[in-house]
């Protein structure tokens, strides 16, 4: 056992000291930071929206004049110049827009906005909305429909989802469950491949280096295999841990920076005004204006400890299960190019579940297929991680955990029997038949 620890230590340190490890460790939080940066840039852009924009209306139809209401930072006023004069004025002032409405405003291109700068989408949207609703109520009035009565009849229902749990009602946020499910599926899939193939490459390296013969004259092949698997596994955990710590730090810093920003924004904007029925429920509960805060708030109410511990369990058990197989493959070949034929059946269940998790599982987390996939050890790490954010019955989770443990013990046992023969075999083209023979060798 002592020697296995030595091997774990070597395998771990050899990888952690690598430049690529250090690079990856800082790259991911860096990307997260960049993501916040992008969101922040968008937020900053929306800040520039808060500059007051004046729209001078030249209404030839007479339907709209005076009915357009100021909204947020858009101020409407009636122009008392002619269109060419107004255009001239607009050319000098980039925050001045000229809205020209023709007599037959329903005709195409009879409603126009002139400006020095391109008007942004929100402004056009607002103008269109107002014009349409004014035109509609105008039409209704013409048709003899009482607009006030009608708007009284309109309903504005938004569904709030509450999940019934033992702790009482819990806000269930489908969007975040969806996001976390998909994200965990991707993360588990990638990490199983990345760390599994690291184990495989390590085994091939030792075999082609011929250092294997020196090592197995000191320790049992099984100790070497186990040491390598656990060492690389610890590298994976270290990487995750560093990512979590760094990302949380980055997120907190970003949160602080953007919160202080938000206070400033709110004073200038007017969040009390509500757009006519178009707001999503998420937006109505929160102050409008800061997407970073929105994003962070969406992630609140998720049971991180639970999901994280599940993630670590399924990463570890899935990794142990697959890396043992990867190690067996590595032992059977003389170079990485020969691994193809053995890799296919190993990657198949992973790939299958991975694709299915987007296409099906995340939309049907409680289906029979999802259940079985989350119980079978070869597919469970991905399938279960997709399901967990949506809530999984305890007995299913327990069954899956037991199956995972049994699964990796089994594959490790099988792999070890192939490995101990494979690592000392050279020049023999390994086939499945050959592997089966190795499996049944006595010692």
């Amino acid at each position, binding site marked *: 056992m002592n*020697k296995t620890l*030595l091997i774990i230590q070597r395998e771990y340190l*050899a990888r952690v000291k690598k430049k690529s490890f250090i690079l990856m460790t800082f790259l991911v939080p860096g990307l997260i930071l960049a993501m916040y940066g992008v969101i922040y840039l968008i937020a900053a852009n929306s800040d520039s929206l808060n500059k007051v924009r004046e729209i001078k209306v030249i209404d030839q139809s007479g339907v709209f004049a005076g009915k357009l209401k100021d909204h947020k930072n858009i101020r409407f006023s009636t122009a008392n110049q002619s269109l060419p004069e107004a255009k001239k004025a607009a050319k000098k002032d980039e925050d001045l827009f000229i809205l020209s409405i023709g007599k037959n405003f329903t005709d195409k291109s009879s409603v126009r906005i002139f400006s020095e700068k391109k008007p942004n989408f929100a402004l056009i949207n607002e103008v269109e909305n107002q014009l349409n609703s004014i035109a509609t109520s105008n039409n209704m009035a013409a048709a003899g429909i009482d607009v006030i009565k009608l708007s009284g009849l309109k309903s504005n229902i938004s569904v709030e989802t509450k999940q019934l749990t033992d702790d009482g009602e819990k806000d269930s946020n489908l969007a975040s469950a969806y996001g976390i499910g998909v994200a965990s599926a991707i993360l588990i899939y990638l990490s199983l491949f990345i760390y599994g193939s690291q184990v495989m490459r390590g085994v091939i390296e030792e075999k082609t*280096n011929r250092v294997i013969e*020196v090592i197995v*004259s000191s*320790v049992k092949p099984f100790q070497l295999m186990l040491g390598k698997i656990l060492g690389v596994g610890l590298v994976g955990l270290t990487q995750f841990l560093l990512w979590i710590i760094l990302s949380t730090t980055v997120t907190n810093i970003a949160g602080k920076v953007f919160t202080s920003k938000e206070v400033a924004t709110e004073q200038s904007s007017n969040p009390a005004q509500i757009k006519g029925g178009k707001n999503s429920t998420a937006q109505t509960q929160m102050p409008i204006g800061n997407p970073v805060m929105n994003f962070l708030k969406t992630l609140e109410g998720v049971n991180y400890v639970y999901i994280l511990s599940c993630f670590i369990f399924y990463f570890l058990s899935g990794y142990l299960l697959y890396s043992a197989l990867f190690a067996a493959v590595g032992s059977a070949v003389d170079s990485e190019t020969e691994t193809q034929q053995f890799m296919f059946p190993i990657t198949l269940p992973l790939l299958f579940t991975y694709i299915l998790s987007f296409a099906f599982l995340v939309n049907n987390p409680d289906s029979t297929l999802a259940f079985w996939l989350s119980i079978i050890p070869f597919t469970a790490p991905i399938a279960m991680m997709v399901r967990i954010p949506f809530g999984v019955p305890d007995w299913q989770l327990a069954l899956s955990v037991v199956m995972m443990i049994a699964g990796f013990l089994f594959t490790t046992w099988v792999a070890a029997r192939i490995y101990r023969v494979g690592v*000392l075999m050279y020049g023999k083209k390994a086939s499945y038949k050959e592997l089966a*023979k190795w499996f049944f060798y006595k010692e």
Partner: protein
Amino acid sequence: MLSIRNIVKQYAGHRALDDVSLEVEKGKIFGLLGPNGAGKTSLIRIINQITAPDAGEVYFNGEKLNQSHIERIGYLPEERGLYKKMEIGEQLVYLARLKGLGKTDAERRIKTWFEKLDMSDWWGKKIEELSKGMQQKVQFVSTILHDLELIILDEPFSGFDPVNAEVIKDEILELNRKGATIIFSTHRMESVEELCDAIALINRSHKILDGPVKTIRNSYRNNTYKVEFTGKISFDGTEPFKLLHHIPGSESDLIQIKLKENTTVNEVLQFLIPKVSINRLEEIIPTMNEIFIEKVNQIR
């Protein structure tokens, strides 16, 4: 010291070792000989407990071979290999610790060896930065760091230039003098004759010959002698020996003779001395190389 009894090792399709028994005496240098594919590596792997025999037993110092003996054995495989990207010092410490040595102890011993073998500034280097001969040196050091009783060297001199081969040979002999038993697996028969006390010859999974080198060579003596002399003599068949070759020279003649039954060298000399002046007389003992080739060809 090492007793190998009736070892059988069966691989799918062929038997690598068939009922092989050997005795290696303590403190001796033992040569394990045999053509390629004879089963030497299989036997070495069994001694190193890399594989287990299908039948038969191995005893180490009278105890049945077990895990604890691994730390008493040093093994230099024929196919050399170390971690290419690992620092040499670190790597040697690792390998020594796998053999049960403490960290500081390992470091101390490595430094001693580095000084001895002229490699003091290699500690922080990586294997891939070294020449092949230098790599061999590192590999040799890795084999002999721990507390050894038995050293198994598979073709130890391959890859060394003559100067370094001599250095390594001296170190091996030094280790042997300090009490380590050495098993040599090699094709180089000169080194066998020079170094080995005893040998075993394995061919096609069977041991076909073993014993002390002197005894074996003696048993292959066939009473042939080489005589160098000055003077004129003609051979007519009445001599007490059979003439095999006669090479006349300008200064001296050389003859190769085989003694007739029940005659001695003294009788030969008695016959020759009155006729010629003898410069040299020497018995021709077959070399290990000749015995090796003869034995292997016999079986075939």
